[in-house]
């Protein structure tokens, strides 16, 4: 179980003597990922997804807030003390080309962490090779052919599998997959996604999936949670299917509206939401971060920052209300975790495309 509360990260850009600029990458993010569970972060480019992923994997420090790994708080620990905890969380990089050292064979790549592991757990040297073969098999690669190869002798999909295998050598409890498939050929993407899903099921590894492609989030963990991040803030969160099917935050709705429709297979949603303008990081931080782009903004939005809270159907009775969903219907969809959002005027809108067959 990994939880974070109020995680804040601000980058100070160096190099300019007098004009240091601050980038507020995360503005107090809460999250919780249960053991064996799945969570997906989606959002526009630059909204802080990678930063959050790196913080969770221990590759980046955070400025404020608290992260608990299996109940142990990270804040009071020194970087050295944090290490064994963060080791349980492994990052899968977006780019499998750079994630493997081109000068080392796959065997060498796997050997290093395994021998470390063997030393820590007092296992014999022979275990290392067995385990190397085992993790490769786990990710669906044939150890015999792959072990002696160099990364450039493998395809993108195979490389990404090796990256995952390497992460598995330290028996992680969680994998952080940052856009793990965006650089892989379309026809192979699903294979990797399936692998992640499979690892969840078979090894009980939880998966934190970072993507801008909402549909893939659904594929890795439809039982997990979806976090929609905007400019370093979580603006909506809830069970994957709920948020996709019934988003209430206008930003989530904009994101979902933008997904291309497979005309011929699907019918577009009836109430697509288009932001009024494009993202501009330099916009003022006052009020709701999305206010300037929001077609449904009200007076409150420009002065007050909405905080994440549970969506209650009563809220739906505002002036923008469109299709009135029955309250209990909403209640039914939110099983377990509630759907939360940060909007003063939430409303369900029918934005996503649906298969022809359904309509």
């Amino acid at each position, binding site marked *: 179980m990994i939880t974070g509360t109020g995680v804040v990260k601000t980058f100070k*850009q160096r*190099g*300019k*003597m*007098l*004009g240091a600029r601050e980038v507020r990458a995360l503005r107090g993010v809460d999250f919780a990922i249960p053991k064996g569970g799945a969570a997906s972060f989606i959002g526009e480019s630059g909204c802080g997804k990678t930063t959050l992923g790196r913080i969770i994997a221990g590759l980046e420090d955070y400025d404020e807030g608290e992260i608990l790994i299996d109940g142990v708080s990270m804040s009071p620990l020194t970087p050295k003390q944090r290490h064994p905890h963060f080791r349980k969380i492994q990052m899968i990089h977006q780019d499998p080309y750079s994630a493997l050292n081109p000068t080392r064979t796959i065997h060498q790549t796997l050997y290093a962490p395994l021998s470390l592991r063997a030393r820590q757990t007092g296992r014999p040297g022979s275990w290392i090779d067995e385990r190397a073969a085992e993790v490769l098999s786990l990710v669906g690669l044939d150890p015999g052919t792959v072990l002696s190869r160099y990364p450039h002798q493998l395809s993108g999909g195979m490389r990404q599998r090796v990256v995952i295998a390497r992460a598995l050598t330290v028996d992680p409890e969680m994998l952080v997959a940052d856009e793990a498939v965006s650089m892989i050929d379309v026809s192979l993407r699903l294979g990797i996604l399936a692998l992640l899903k499979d690892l969840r099921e078979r090894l009980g590894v939880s998966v934190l999936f970072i993507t801008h492609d909402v549909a893939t989030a659904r594929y890795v963990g439809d039982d997990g949670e979806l976090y929609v991040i905007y400019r370093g803030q979580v603006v909506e969160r809830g069970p994957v299917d709920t948020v996709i099917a019934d988003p209430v935050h206008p930003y989530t709705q904009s994101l979902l509206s933008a997904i291309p429709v497979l005309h011929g297979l699907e019918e577009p949603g009836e109430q697509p939401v288009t932001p009024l303008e494009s993202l501009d990081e330099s916009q003022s931080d006052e009020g709701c971060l999305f206010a300037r782009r929001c077609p449904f903004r009200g007076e409150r939005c420009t002065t007050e920052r909405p905080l994440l809270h549970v969506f209650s159907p009563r809220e739906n009775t505002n002036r923008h209300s469109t299709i009135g969903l029955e309250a209990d219907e909403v209640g039914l969809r939110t099983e377990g975790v509630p759907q939360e959002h940060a909007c003063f005027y939430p409303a369900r809108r029918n934005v996503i495309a649906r298969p022809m067959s359904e309509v």
Partner: protein
Amino acid sequence: MVAIARRLAGHLARGIVMILVVATISFFIVRSIPGDPVAANVQKLIQSGMDPQAAEQATRVLYGFQPKGSLWEQYTQYMAGLLHFDLGQSVTHAGAPVTQVLGEAAKWTVIPVLAGTLLSFLVGIVMGVYAAIKRSGKLGDILAISGSLLHGVPQYVLGLLLSAIFATLIPILPADGPVDILFEPGFNAGYIGSLVEHAVLPVLTYALAAYGGWILAMKSSVVTVLGDDFILAAELRGMKRSIIFRYIARNAILPLFTILALSLGVLLGGAVFIERIFNYPGLGLLLLDSITMRDYALMGGAFLLITVSIIVANIIADLFYSVIDPRVRSGEEVSG
């Protein structure tokens, strides 16, 4: 504009710190040189036939220009002087202020260095473009290898070879100083002709030595730019060849301008060999002389001036870059 001003302020601050540090280093290095110049001078005068007592007196007069007091006092004095551009007084130049001696020498370094650098720069970039375009052919290979060779060979080898050829085997060019004294200084054909004639060999050496670097830098810069997407894009938009060539040239030369400014600074210090070989009375020769003459103040001053010129060149290079590169101009960091 604000961004440039900020950058300038930052660089100036850093430059000043650098200068102070270098001044300190040079002060202490110079003071730790073994050999007591006073005792040595006495011996020298005695050897030249002077009475020991008289020699001692003469030396004391001469070295009256030497700063007195403890090392720390000397240091503070030196640094205080530095603030007023006072580098002390030269011993070998009869108490002339070091700044004056340096100023006199500097012009003889600056002129040929500037001429040689510009010449090599112009020729180098043209050949560099050529080498980039023909990079897969024989000509490109020859240009690149000869460029590397010229770039690799030390200045003195070139200087000696040129001197052997043009001043010894076929003595058609002078290798003795900057100008023939017989010509009345001023804007007259004789004087200028003499200046030019005397500058040919040093300038040619500078140019040859630097040329290799330019051709290599320009070649790789052009190759990089040629691979840039916007060049292909311009081609696909049907832009005229001449315009595309301008795009390539401007983008490729840009990084070279920085090197140009820097190299001017560095060359001032590297002039020792060329000035020694062609007896050109510039800063390098001055430094060399001051070392053999144990003229502390002058040695420190020459060293400091050479360093400062590099620092200034650095700042100019950077400012220059900010002016011509819009990315820097608007305050965006282009590279580390």
